[in-house]
């Protein structure tokens, strides 16, 4: 055959390398030197981790003055590469005219990319620090407004981070 792959020969080892014992001793030396260094292991879940503001946890809706900032424009839903977001708009008496009667994120679909946060014209959906998500049923993974709405002052870290890095 024309494009046959070249045959790769096993490296010819020196008798000193074939002997192995010195290699093993060297390995043990590295291991032993690590044993006496300080520990890095975190005792999760007893010991919780507080992620930095750049962390992308589950997306949440920002609540201000008791209502969501969201105007149900549907841009997050449109940009979401995983089709996780479903928004149904309706009319409100408030100045913003439009609000989401239903806002659902399917957390089994979400890939935590943060595109929704990036596209939102109202800074109404942001990535939180929450990353512990466990469900027993598919239905439980669909988060409605009850689970999504978080008051703005609890999201200060992220909102500041976003302004700084705009």
């Amino acid at each position, binding site marked *: 055959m024309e494009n046959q792959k070249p045959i790769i020969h096993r490296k010819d080892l020196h008798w000193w390398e074939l002997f192995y014992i010195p290699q093993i001793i060297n390995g043990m030396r590295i291991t032993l030197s690590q044993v006496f260094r300080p520990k890095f292991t975190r005792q999760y879940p007893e010991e919780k981790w507080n992620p930095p503001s750049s962390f992308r946890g589950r997306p949440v809706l920002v609540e201000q003055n008791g209502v969501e900032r969201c105007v149900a424009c549907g841009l997050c839903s*449109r940009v979401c590469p995983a089709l996780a977001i479903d928004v149904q708009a309706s009319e409100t008496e408030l100045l913003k*005219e*439009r609000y989401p009667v239903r806002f659902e994120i399917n957390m089994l679909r979400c890939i935590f990319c943060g595109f929704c946060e990036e596209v939102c014209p109202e800074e109404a959906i942001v990535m939180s620090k929450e990353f512990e998500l466990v469900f027993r049923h598919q239905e439980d993974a669909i988060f409605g407004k009850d689970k999504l709405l978080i008051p703005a002052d609890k999201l200060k870290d992220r909102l500041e981070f976003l302004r700084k890095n705009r």
Partner: protein
Amino acid sequence: MVKITIDEKVFEVENNLTIIQAARQNGIHIPHFCWHPTLSVSGNCRVCLVEVEKMPKLVIACATQVAEGMVVKTNSEKVVKARNAVLEFILINHPLDCPICDEAGECKLQDYAYKYSVGESRFDFDKVRKPKRVELGPNVMLDTERCIMCSRCIRFCDEIVKKPQLVFTQRGDHVELTTFPGEKLDNNYSMNVIDLCPVGALTSKDFRFKSRVWDMSSTDSICVGCSRGCNTKMWVRNNEILRLTPRYNSSVNQYWMCDHGRLNTFKHINSPNRINAPMIRKEGRLIDVGWDEAIAKAASELKSYKKSEIAALGSAHATNEDNYLMAKLMNFIGVKRIDFLPHLDENNKDNILLQEDKSPNSFGAKTVGVKPETIEYSYQHIIEDIKNGKVKALYVIDDDIASNPGIAHVLPKLEFLLIHASNENETVKYADVVLASSTYAEKHGTFTNFSGRVQRNKPAISTLEHDRVLDNMSLSRLDRFGAHNDRWTRGIKRDTRATWRIINSIAAILGAKWKYNNCEDVFNEIAASVTAFNGLSYSKIGNSGALISVTKEQAKVRL
């Protein structure tokens, strides 16, 4: 004819055209807000500026007539700069409303700003504020801030409807659209201004905030509100129709449709009173049954009567195919009493689109054979004969006959009433067997309008009979990429069937050896056996319809 050059291409065009028309005829798009092919030229938006050689300044393409040897540039440096400037001017006072604006996604201003502007504004001051959420009439909302003062809506009312209702007040950047004092935008065609408005200043009250346009699929359809048969688009999300918009057809409805057609011809399809499965009356109550049982019952009952005791009513609401098979089945059994009820209302007619016939297919029903051979088999006589006991069994498709005056009280005289119905209605109350029929939005078929134009209708809503993906129906992004367990793919799918298919099943039990796999097979047989339809096919009908051949006598008895 004159020779002109547009963007270095030479065209020969008629000499009474404007540059924008000549360009359009030849597939060159010159951006425009205020110009519309059917309205007078206003020339106020200035976005159609083009360069014409030997003219000192740029000219507006909508108001400049072509001339021999004219050389037009639609994309020269000067034009590009001017267009950008025009858009910058328009955007000075246009609010940043896209996130809450229903027009977003189909907005000319969005599109042009994206395509023809550099996207930067040098305006640092406050925008002019004007009233928002103004109800212009029963069906149309106005957001005065969003208006770009193109005057299309005003010209539409003045020139097409011939009912001046809208007007500008104030001057300069304070110009406001409003209705004349004491007037409302309440003409029968008012909602066309929503489609005409190049921005989201005029929006539909009915559709307000229901869906983003990019989340819906659209299916070419036909309005069934009257015998005009306006061409429409049906916008669907989650297997639910959310709005209808007109679709251009030069020989039927131009760019328009009436408000009645737009608002009242689709709500029944998703209404809670839909009949979702066939029903049989047992001990006085209608009980849901399976299709096999219902069809067997219908056939055996029909068989148990003498053919002179049976009468049949086709329907001007049903398609040509449905009516053809109805006539064919009656012919097969030997039933002579066959007709359909007309739905005429003189007050319904106007000089624009609306026709006095409030059903879409009277002409078609008659032409494919739903008509009495002699006057004594006509529907008036059928009703008389029910009264005097000559007719004992009645078969009705897709028509609420009991809601017509003088019919309801006759129906209890019948021994057996078999109907096809899509919604609970007066007739259902008297029926012994109700076969759940698909609405026009759920089936294939053709309608013949008042002028003899056959037009095709396609399913936009999926039922157990029509699968959105497998049956090639139009798909939205969500339909395409959703999984079966996504919420938006869970819209109701009903167990209804097209009337022609139901008749076909009944005929099979009664011993007819028909072979139709789909609606097109039925149409092909109509085309072969009904003279007026000779030579027609679904592909010939296409998107804009095809005329049947009508003799003068036929034309006279159209209704």
